[in-house]
């Protein structure tokens, strides 16, 4: 289990780095692992991504939030080589990464997960995990023919995979085909598999959507451990409880652009962010009466909006 004090210290370190930073989009970070400049991606008439400048601090947990269709996933696609940007440049660890094919991006230590999960259906959960490991001797054709060359490494990988699976509550599914997992389990596998890569920067696209809250909570601990181990985490999430709980820094995107940056607490009270994204009621009330009140309020607001629309 995690060592609370240690995690806390890492968090403190991360927070310290962000302490006096300006809360404006594109603010430079003291030790950025990822620097993005003027990335643009258009689909026909639609500009899905138009990021002017953004940096991700090494060793931090950074959340990327924004309304649906803001371009978060598309942004990930550009950075990880799954799609070609129309313009722009970005560096990872100081190395220019535009035009680098997806597998090289992953090898250089920048690994992403997919929002719409990609389970390798007719491989077992364990094989899915093993595939994530890097530098496997047995993955070269000639070595593959001689099992003694890779047996030992395979055992190590398996061990590591088992640990992760246990954490992600997938150990019971170890030998089942990944195609037979439930929606939430696929999300879990997707994330666990990415962690097998041992990346420097892990980019998670809505890792917890559809994951049971109790499990989410325990997994957050794991993510914090990752930061402890020096990993940088950049994640997209719509669950504000989670964002608030683990992120050190939040970047907000809307309509393809970065509109705000800042620590979670500040961001969530930012007027524009509330407007574009959170809505008035993201701090969900717990009592029935409050809910009722809110309901009415929302209805009224909606109606007003509708009226406005129809009047236009």
């Amino acid at each position, binding site marked *: 289990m995690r060592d609370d004090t240690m995690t806390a210290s890492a968090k403190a370190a991360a927070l310290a780095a962000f302490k006096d930073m300006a809360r404006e989009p594109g603010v430079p970070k003291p030790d950025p692992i990822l620097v993005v400049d003027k990335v643009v991606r258009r689909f026909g008439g639609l500009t899905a991504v138009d990021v002017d400048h953004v940096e991700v601090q090494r060793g931090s947990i950074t959340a990327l939030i924004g309304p649906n269709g803001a371009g978060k996933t598309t942004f990930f696609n550009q950075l990880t080589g799954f799609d070609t940007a129309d313009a722009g440049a970005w560096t990872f660890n100081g190395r220019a990464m535009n035009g680098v094919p997806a*597998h090289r991006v992953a090898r250089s230590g920048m690994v992403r997960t997919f929002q719409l999960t990609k389970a*390798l259906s007719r*491989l077992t959960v364990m*094989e899915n995990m*093993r595939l994530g490991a890097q530098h496997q001797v047995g*993955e070269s*054709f000639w070595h*593959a023919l001689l*099992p003694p060359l890779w047996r030992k490494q395979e055992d190590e990988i398996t061990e590591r995979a088992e640990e992760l699976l246990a954490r992600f509550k997938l150990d019971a599914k170890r030998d089942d085909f990944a*195609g037979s997992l439930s929606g939430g389990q696929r999300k879990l596998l997707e994330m666990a598999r990415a962690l097998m890569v041992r990346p420097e920067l892990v980019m998670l696209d809505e890792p917890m959507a559809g994951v049971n809250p109790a499990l989410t909570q325990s997994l957050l601990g794991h993510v914090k451990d990752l930061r402890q181990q020096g990993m940088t985490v950049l994640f997209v999430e719509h669950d504000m409880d989670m964002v608030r709980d683990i992120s050190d820094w939040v970047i907000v995107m809307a309509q393809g652009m970065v509109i705000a940056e800042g620590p979670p607490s500040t961001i969530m009270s930012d007027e524009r962010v509330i407007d574009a994204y959170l809505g008035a009621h993201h701090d969900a009330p717990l009592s029935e009466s409050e809910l009722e009140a809110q309901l009415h309020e929302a209805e009224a607001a909606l109606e007003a909006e509708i009226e406005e629309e129809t009047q236009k």
Partner: protein
Amino acid sequence: MDWLTILSTTVHAAIGWETVVYGLAAIGVNIHFGYTGLLNFGQAAFMAVAGYGLAVTVVVFNLPFVVGVLVGLAAAALLALLMGIPTLQLRADYLAIVTIAAAEIIRLVFRSVYFKDIFGGSDGRRGFNGDFYAMNFLYDPGRYGIGPFGFDERTMWLLTVGWAVVLLCCLVVFLLMRSPWGRVLKAIREDEDAVRALGKNVFAYKMQSLMLGGIIGCFGGFFYGLYNGSVQPDVFGTEMTFFAYTIVILGGAARVFGPVVGAMIFWVLFVFVGNLLAELVANGYIPFMTNIQVGPVRYALVGLGFILLLVARPQGIFGDKREIAIDAR
């Protein structure tokens, strides 16, 4: 009714050269399609370039047999490169049609009057297998076998070498597919992007798979040429590839021995049905059919046989029902 002939020809087919040739083609297809998910419908082209590589080297350029084999292998590897570079980025179903197209192009070129001086036009090339049989150090001339079951020394030699190659290929497939290398292939079959995201060079693996399967298929081409003493362009048509696929599915995709057993079933079905039917007609048991109609009816029955086998066992002989049940979509 000549049951003995029906039986002996059936047994011969099960272990004969057809099973070797189609088995090898199918092992290659199994690597492409069964393991990697590459819908390569141009397997016949690999066999063709191998067969022709050997034939043209020996017959037209008068070089030794061994050189011919090397040229054939090189041709198959080169074909994999040429075919792979443009096509491996395509989605599975697009890849299928492009590989068929490539294979047809190759066949038509081999067949053309324009290149007749090299490839021999529609009659192909012959007269390159002497050296192969001269290498026979195992069998003296004569007949080997029990009673009606048996082969002459030439066939025995070819079958010995052929089956050795088949088993060797099975061993290689077995070793590879249990290794991390094979795991990457299987993962590519499921979702390329996921594999890319994990830092594997998908293109390189696909290319390796295409080459390996192509080269194994190319041995099928060699044995075809060596047994028949000739290569002709039309042998290597799409039919050959279709049959290889049928064999793979009959045996069970992504199973090491699937293609071999599939090939046996395929040919046993073919020969048994054909010869049984011919005997029935010849002996007047099916009065309404003439001897000329035996051919088409036999094929129709064989087609029906495939259908029934696959309806009964869509996963093939060795396949796993669970794997089929997982919706790949």
